[in-house]
């Protein structure tokens, strides 16, 4: 039995307990209020969900399967079941959210989508739906990430999007997000900002969760159908935290299901450079909401490091901060070396190349499955596939993947 929380949050002001809120310059306040009104109207409109469900089925390829990864762990262990978000169109969970936000944008009469991206998965997913709906797409991406995710940069161009490299600050996801906010402030009338995770000012953490919760709703029904019971544990990687909120949400009110968020420890939690906001950060305000932030004693946001660009972010969604403080979910951290080992191991033992982000969740799930023993049942969100990371991993292994 774990601590219970209110799964109906956020409240009217966008708070999950003491986390969340709206901390943005005045120029964006009305835009967020309009977005909130449009979101509430759309969510109450069966026609909106009907179109969403059709696109998720025919375009994204939902429902995604669950899969028993039988050869991942040796010795007595709990079965490990992957929720296969890697099988989605564009190769990750990100598209669930971009389809939803693009439909919202169209309802609101916006002609142009902007997005930040770290690993490039969210940028690709935004460019994809933009191409399908005939909308202009501009993607902001840190220069460091442009370099390490060259494949996705080219994919976005193929899809007709314009990629804007961001050279300020740490030149990664944090700065790309700053730049996307600034661009939105300048073009708020015709532009819809498609945020890629459960971060940002209200209503973004809420609406992104609502678009991603399909992962958990499907997985919960699939587990009951195949195993006749709920999983004992649900495991997902956490950067901003959208795939984790997506799979957690359907299980939050199941008291016997333990929820595990796996952050990126980078070179280690004690190291200067980590990306584990919930494990190594403190309460602060970043990108419009109050949550845990990796920051110094003066409130300056710290440089982060993770081998996975998608987790390389100094903040985390406010609902995760709420789940952490309430004890409903637990947050652990896996370092680069263990994530890379899980990446290789999953490729060799299961014939599945996971995204480096997802490899963090797998690394933790392997330990947990042994700890739980045969009585357990561990569900892991395999949030994306690893094609985009092949060049990074090859370089780390001293191989040439060009």
């Amino acid at each position, binding site marked *: 039995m774990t601590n219970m929380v209110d799964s109906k949050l956020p409240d009217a*002001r966008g708070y999950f307990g003491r986390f969340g809120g709206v*901390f943005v*310059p005045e120029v964006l306040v009305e835009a967020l209020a309009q977005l909130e009104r449009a979101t509430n109207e759309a969510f109450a409109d069966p026609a909106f969900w009907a179109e969403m469900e059709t696109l998720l089925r025919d375009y994204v390829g939902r429902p995604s399967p669950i899969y028993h990864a039988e050869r991942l762990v040796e010795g007595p262990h709990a079965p490990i079941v992957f929720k296969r978000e890697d099988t989605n169109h564009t190769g990750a969970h990100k598209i669930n959210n971009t389809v939803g936000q693009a439909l919202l944008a169209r309802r609101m009469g916006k002609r142009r989508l902007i997005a930040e991206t770290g690993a490039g998965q969210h940028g690709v997913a935004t460019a994809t739906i933009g191409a399908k709906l005939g909308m202009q797409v501009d993607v902001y991406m840190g220069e460091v990430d442009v370099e390490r995710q060259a494949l996705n940069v080219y994919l976005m161009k193929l899809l007709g999007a314009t990629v804007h490299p961001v050279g*300020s*600050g740490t030149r990664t996801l944090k700065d790309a997000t700053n730049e996307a906010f600034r661009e939105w402030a*300048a073009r708020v009338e015709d532009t819809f900002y498609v945020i890629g995770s459960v971060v940002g000012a209200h209503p973004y953490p809420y609406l992104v969760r609502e678009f991603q919760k399909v992962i958990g709703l499907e997985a919960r029904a699939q587990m009951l159908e195949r195993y006749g019971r709920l999983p004992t544990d649900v495991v997902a990687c956490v950067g901003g935290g959208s795939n984790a909120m997506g799979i957690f949400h359907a299980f939050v009110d199941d008291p016997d299901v333990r929820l595990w968020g796996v952050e990126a420890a980078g070179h280690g939690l004690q190291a200067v450079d980590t990306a584990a906001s919930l494990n190594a950060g403190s309460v602060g305000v970043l990108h419009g909401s109050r949550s845990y932030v990796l920051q110094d004693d003066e409130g300056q*946001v710290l440089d982060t490091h993770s081998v996975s660009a998608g987790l390389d972010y100094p903040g985390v969604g406010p609902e995760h901060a709420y789940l952490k403080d309430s004890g409903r979910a637990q947050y652990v951290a896996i370092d680069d070396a263990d994530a890379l080992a899980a990446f290789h191991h999953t490729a060799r033992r299961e014939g599945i190349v996971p995204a480096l982000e997802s490899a963090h969740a797998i690394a933790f799930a392997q330990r947990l499955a042994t700890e739980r023993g045969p009585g357990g049942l561990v569900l892991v969100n395999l949030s994306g596939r690893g094609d985009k990371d092949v060049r990074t991993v090859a370089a780390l292994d001293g191989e040439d993947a060009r």
Partner: protein
Amino acid sequence: MIASGGFDAVFARPRAERRAALIAYVVAGDPDRATTLAVIDALTAAGVDLIELGIPYGDPLADGPTIAAAAQRALDGGTRMADAIAIAAEARERGAAPILYFTYLNPIDRYGVERFAREAAASGAVGAIVPDVPLEELPAFGPPLRAAGLAIPLLIAPTTPPERAARIAAASSGFVYLVSRLGVTGARREPDVAWAASSIARLRSATTLPLAVGFGISTPAHAAAVGAVADAVIVGSALIDAYAGSRGAQAAQLAGAYARSLRGALRPHG
């Protein structure tokens, strides 16, 4: 403890001279403490009525590339909250124009809102602008600053609906800051003077506070046009550009000359 004199003193001289006030923004510690002090002295001598002193923050969402880069230079030089407050206190002791802080919520939050309020007031500052604290979050943030005698000017943007603008004006203190156009700070895009004029006309019935206009003001012509309709003209990025890359006396000379060019454009109202 230096008496701030409050905001009444800030606007007394421009009112007496029947012209708009000139408010000038610089980042504390850009690129170093001595330069900032020399620049503040020069701005004061050039007739600037209020110094907006930026406390550097590395992720300034409301700011464009010029101010973001200035903040980064200050941070790279080691300027933090206590250093910025010390610069303000020293400037006031040297007879500088009144000082108003400008920074973001996170550095104040980490420093402690009450500690910031106490030390900011003791430095002789008249208030603080915190652009990522909107009206709805003010009740949780504002009281310690107000209790310390600090004003909190609030911002109104072109996207702000009129009814909300009236509520913001009523909750503001010191002055009301009208953002002249969409976007972030910076000199690359022009102010929308017509929008500012119509907003000011509407807001006069909602507040007796001075109405200041900023964002995009970079030339004496902008200052003259905005100064003809507003109670104060705010310049930031263009001023920082005027002395970026220089230090000490040279920076002060460039900043002073630039400020004089704007101050000279603020003619008595007819």
